[in-house]
């Protein structure tokens, strides 16, 4: 599919978020306009407090903007009620967190099955948990609980959980932030594979330039705004050699 005809999976228009605490107001996002096309792998960078996480939470329907519009797969989610936002999260979004956020009482497979259960029809089009775990190199870890897994393994389980229902978008909040460099590279490579092989749209927050280099586009944020010197990268096969 050509670049020009790829549909917009994410689009924000004048997206503004102001946090209020009593009479104090803090503007986290100031009129952000962003378009992410299907199959893009976008890295969002910027210093702490620049609004990256707020942007991710808004894109994922975890909160509502103060002003502006957010279109996810053509739906203005800012106008949806709680049930509608929940539906968007369930059907369209997959989250990968810095701290993995797996259920410690469940096995790796149990964590993935839970996501399928919440999705409701995970058994239809989505791959089976074991198949996904195999793809992510975790087939022999299905019966392990998160505390029994390494950080890298936990994050791979979290990625498996995020993709099991084949959401339109993966939102990753510093997915390598808690990993050593070897595991970080492995996780990034897998995300890249998901992007390339499954045409999975990914928006990833990162502080790490090396991680950002894996993305097809880097967006820089400052003071709640997107800087216009955002860069486009072409994926370089020789980069693979790093891992």
């Amino acid at each position, binding site marked *: 599919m050509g670049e020009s005809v790829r549909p917009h999976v994410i689009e924000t228009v004048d997206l503004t978020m102001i946090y209020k605490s009593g009479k104090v107001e803090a503007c986290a996002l100031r009129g952000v306009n962003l378009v992410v096309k299907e199959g893009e792998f976008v890295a969002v960078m910027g210093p702490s407090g620049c609004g990256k996480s707020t942007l991710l939470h808004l894109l994922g329907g975890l909160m509502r903007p103060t002003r502006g519009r957010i279109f996810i797969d053509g739906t203005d989610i800012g106008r949806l009620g709680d049930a509608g936002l929940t539906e968007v999260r369930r059907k369209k979004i997959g989250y990968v967190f810095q701290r993995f*956020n797996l259920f410690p009482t469940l096995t790796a497979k149990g964590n993935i099955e839970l996501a399928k259960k*919440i999705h409701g029809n995970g058994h239809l089009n989505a791959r089976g948990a074991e198949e996904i775990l195999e793809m992510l190199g975790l087939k022999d870890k299905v019966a392990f609980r998160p505390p029994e897994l390494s950080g890298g393994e936990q994050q791979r389980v979290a990625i498996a959980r995020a993709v099991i229902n084949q959401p339109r978008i993966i939102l990753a909040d510093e997915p390598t932030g808690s990993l050593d460099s070897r595991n970080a590279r492995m996780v990034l490579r897998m995300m890249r594979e998901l992007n390339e092989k499954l045409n999975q749209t990914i928006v990833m927050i990162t502080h790490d330039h090396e991680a950002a280099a894996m993305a097809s586009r880097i967006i820089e944020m400052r003071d709640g705004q997107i800087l216009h010197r955002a860069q486009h990268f072409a994926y370089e096969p020789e980069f693979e050699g790093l891992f």
Partner: protein
Amino acid sequence: MESLITANIRSRPTRTLISVLAVALGIILMLIVGGIATGTLNDYLQRTRMVGADFILQPSGSTVFYAFSGASLPIKLVDKLLEVPGIRAAVPVLAKFNSSDFGLVFGVDLEKYNRLSGRLKVVEGKESLQADEVIVDELFAKSHQLSPGMKLTLLNHTFTVSAICRVGSVVRVFVSLGTLQELNGTPDKVTAIFIQADKGDLSLAYERLRVAFPGFAIIRTSDASLLLQDTSMPGFKEFLLTVILVSTLLSFMVILLAMYTTIFERTREIGILKSLGASRWFIVGMILKESVIICGFGVLFGAGASAVIRKAIIAAFPTMQVSMSARDLLFACAMGLGSGTLGAIYPAYKAARQDPVTALSYE
């Protein structure tokens, strides 16, 4: 989802165990305490009916639980009762509470008492009730290891067991009316008069007695419901209600506290569930199902333990009755499950309403 629920239950064994035990305790309290109260009442009422009287005359506001009654009826009322047309027998009894074994002793004139159809049926010994003689029923004899000829000290007086009668009389121990009046310091006074009417229309006899004795309670014993209706049972229903309320509150409070604590512990997990797209109902359902499972174990354990405790009580105290019908069991189980589930509603609602971003950042 079920695996998350069972995993949560298994991963917090101490909380689960304490919650299960607390729910079970509520069930045991309801079944055993309520069962003793109901069993004792039913047994007593049944034995009252087995005396064979059609009516019991007592002072107004009295109860057939004679432990609460004094000796205030003049014995001369017997003659007046016999003057009422259709009244065949009037048998005075003096009831005295024997605190040493928490039971009642009847002072009776044996010859008159045995005119009633529920007369004492002696199975061992001599049918006699002289001044210092006592007749006990089989259960009393068994629990006190008595046989005819043995001595028994009651009300600071030593009696000789003259006979052992069958179980079924209203009380388990009988002495001579004169002796008990003397011991009680109430000569010529009795607690109640058992009345037997001629065969025929009991309602007519009842009306005649009411007219002839307007200031007295005429208790009909021909029917269990009439007996319950006519007798006064001070505080019995209130007592049962209190037991049920305390038991129910126990389950409610324990589950409320356990689940409330749990959702605080699991705030981050609730945030994760929300990020995965779990609806409010999904989260409410998860918390409620968890509490239902805990309560279910509590109810099962409580019901099982109650059955064991009931058997142990009956074995240890043969004269004690513990009523535990299938209806009682179902009621207690429903109350345990219901109160536990109600206790989980507020924590579940609170969990479902959590802001996902705040929950996800919870440490």
